[in-house]
């Protein structure tokens, strides 16, 4: 399931919904991304997340379908927020459920790595020195590329 929303989410409630009524699920893996304050002169006081409505949902659905193709998942969930967020706020939740932990853990890692390089979101940071757009990280491309080698 894909959700793109401005509002916060309740992690416990979402994970409960993901597994409820399916006794085949033996494990749930999750990743929660938070707004980080870098500290010092780069102190981030807030983050604004912009996205491309339509393409965002399409790309997230494609990534989720690919995870389901690669691993035997019973359920999966991606929630990504947009709008203005402050340090400590939740940005993203990825959760995967499977009979066994290996598939759930690997698929969760795959989803967050691919989401970072494929889903059309952009962050701008408010800092004491002004507002600036976050630059894409080369390490994120490398992290996503790891998964193309192993099918």
């Amino acid at each position, binding site marked *: 399931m894909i959700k793109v929303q401005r509002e916060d989410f309740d992690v416990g409630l979402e994970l409960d919904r993901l597994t409820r009524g399916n006794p085949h699920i033996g494990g749930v893996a999750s990743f929660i*991304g938070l707004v980080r304050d870098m500290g010092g002169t780069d102190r981030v006081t807030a983050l604004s*997340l*912009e*996205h*491309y409505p*339509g*393409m965002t949902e*399409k*790309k997230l659905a494609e990534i989720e379908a690919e995870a389901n193709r690669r691993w035997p998942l019973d359920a999966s969930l991606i929630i*990504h927020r947009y709008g203005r967020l402050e340090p400590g706020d939740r*940005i*993203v939740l990825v959760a995967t459920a499977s009979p066994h932990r290996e598939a759930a853990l690997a698929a969760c890692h795959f989803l*967050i790595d691919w*989401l*970072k*390089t*494929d*889903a*059309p*979101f*952009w*962050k*701008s940071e408010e800092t004491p020195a002004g507002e600036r*757009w*976050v*630059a*894409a*990280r080369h390490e*994120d491309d490398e992290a996503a590329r790891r998964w193309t080698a192993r099918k």
Partner: protein
Amino acid sequence: MKILYFAWLRAKIGTAEEDLPLPRGVADVAALLAWLKTRGPGYAEALKDLTAVRVAVNQDYVGPEHKVRDGDEVAIFPPVTGG
């Protein structure tokens, strides 16, 4: 065609969205970007380094050789930074 701009490309160009007829002689993404650059200083500045620019046509990532047609939705934006 509809053209959408996001993040700092939107800020530099000064608009989020515009509707344009397919320019004469423009057949692919590379030609469209070259034509847009000539529309004003904001466009020229935003599109001067195309290694920092990604393009999606009808909501799929495409390369410079991808054909464009009137009626396409073309989105132009920097590398993504979500998650």
